[in-house]
């Protein structure tokens, strides 16, 4: 995985950066208002804010956001459990690794987007289709990172476990899993963003609910301001989910290592 520690270590809310963001929004507003550069269907930030306000008050924004968050979290949880289980198995058992790893590599290479049509044919326009797609896509980052983390556990740590006479189960619980945790967390985080994207894809093409559906129906009814509201909500949702997971990671892995590994 690439280095991905964010653009600014000193934090998200920086006065200079925020003022740039505000200036950009102001320039956009001015551009649309003064019709200097007219782009068809491009709403001004103030129109987006108005659309967002009414979408909040009539309840559709909150309801749809809750749906997307729910599906994302549910699919991600199932994907995490499956990915963790398979990752531990492949990382711990050389036989399982030898006879199945290439199969997982091949399956993982399939872009999850192309599975949406298959899921649509099999499950129809339903919640099930959305859940299956989200879960399937989320498994791979967790699997790969769990396996990698387990395989990279320092042999000295295992030796300590053997010396203490730990049972295989205790060995996994007390030595292997904690040592692999930073890598597992990276996988969980990648999976969470992927699950959100897949949920929105599924909502755009299949399951008529959630932010993706709101987005596409605003597009079809030519309400660009409402459409931007959904896009921005989806972006904020990504940031919030990521930050929440980062906070959990910090709680799970206190100390120096956690600070280094969760600087995202």
């Amino acid at each position, binding site marked *: 995985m690439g*280095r991905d520690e964010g653009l*600014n270590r000193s934090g998200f809310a920086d006065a*200079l950066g925020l003022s740039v963001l505000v200036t*950009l929004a102001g320039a956009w507003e001015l551009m649309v208002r003064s019709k200097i550069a007219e782009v068809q269907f491009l709403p001004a930030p103030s129109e987006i804010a108005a659309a967002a306000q009414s979408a909040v008050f009539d309840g559709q924004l909150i309801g749809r956001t809750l749906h997307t968050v729910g599906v994302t979290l549910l699919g991600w949880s199932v994907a995490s459990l499956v990915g963790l289980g398979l990752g531990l198995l492949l990382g711990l058992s050389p036989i399982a690794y030898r*006879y199945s790893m*290439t199969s997982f590599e091949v399956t993982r290479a399939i872009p999850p987007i192309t599975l949406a049509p298959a899921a649509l*044919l099999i499950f129809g326009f339903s919640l099930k289709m959305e859940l299956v797609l989200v879960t399937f896509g989320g498994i791979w980052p967790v699997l790969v990172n769990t396996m990698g983390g387990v395989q990279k556990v320092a042999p000295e740590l295992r030796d300590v476990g053997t010396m203490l006479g730990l049972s295989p189960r205790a060995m996994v619980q007390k030595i292997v899993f904690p040592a692999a945790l930073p890598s597992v967390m990276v996988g969980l985080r990648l999976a969470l963003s992927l699950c959100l*994207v897949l949920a929105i*894809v599924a909502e755009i093409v299949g399951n008529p609910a959630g932010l993706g559906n709101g987005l596409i129906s605003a597009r079809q009814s030519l309400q660009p301001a409402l459409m931007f509201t959904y896009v921005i909500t989806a*972006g904020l949702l990504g940031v919030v989910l990521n930050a929440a997971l980062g906070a959990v990671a910090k709680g799970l892995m206190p100390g120096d290592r956690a600070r280094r590994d969760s600087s995202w």
Partner: protein
Amino acid sequence: MRRLVERVRLGSLPGLLLLFLVLVGWELVGSADSPFYPAPSSWWPALVERGQSAAIVPALVDTLRTFGLGLTVATITGVALGLAVGASRVVGRATAPTFEFARALPPAAIVPVATLLLGFDETMKVVVVALAAVWPILLNTSSGVRELNPLLRDTARSLRLSKTRTLFSVLLPSVTPSVILGIRVATPVALVITLLVEYLTAVNGIGALVGDAQRTFQPARVFALIVIAGALSLAVNALVRSAEERVIRRRRR
């Protein structure tokens, strides 16, 4: 076959056993005209029957073109912005919230907006792909610049190299590994987003073909195209990896 598998860096050939067993089981249980799980042996015929095979190659070309253009645009923009963000603290601080927010926008959500503002054409597709693939390249370039040995910059300064000279003979060569790492991370993203745009807009390419097969209820064809998309993604990733190795080997010399 073994050579091919090694080339694509999949691991060992016996590792395909599980997939093989699943497909054999599927073949035994499924039938060719199942509306949900058509047997694997029916996939290939479904792809080529009734003159539909003619559409595959142009679709592959379309997909590869959008992918290539998108990744190129992302690389150029990502490296330029990454150098600026990495070299200057002020630029980094000023752009961080804007970039963080833009990065968080799910590409799937951008597609409907892009079609509304830019229309259904190649430019729109390339913009969406580049917008999604630019972040890994930007981030890796900027952290590459930040982690640069200060000695290098000091040397350039004491040699009184011009700004352009410093950029091309010091900065760019030393961040190349970071840039390439960024491109490697961005490659699968660019491919997935290419397929996504094609699927969502139904304009040309493999993604549009899959969508079309789904809307006309041809499950065997859908599965065949999924296999093609998987093979495409393996091939593209292998290509980028071997290019990466070649560049790194040349630098070592």
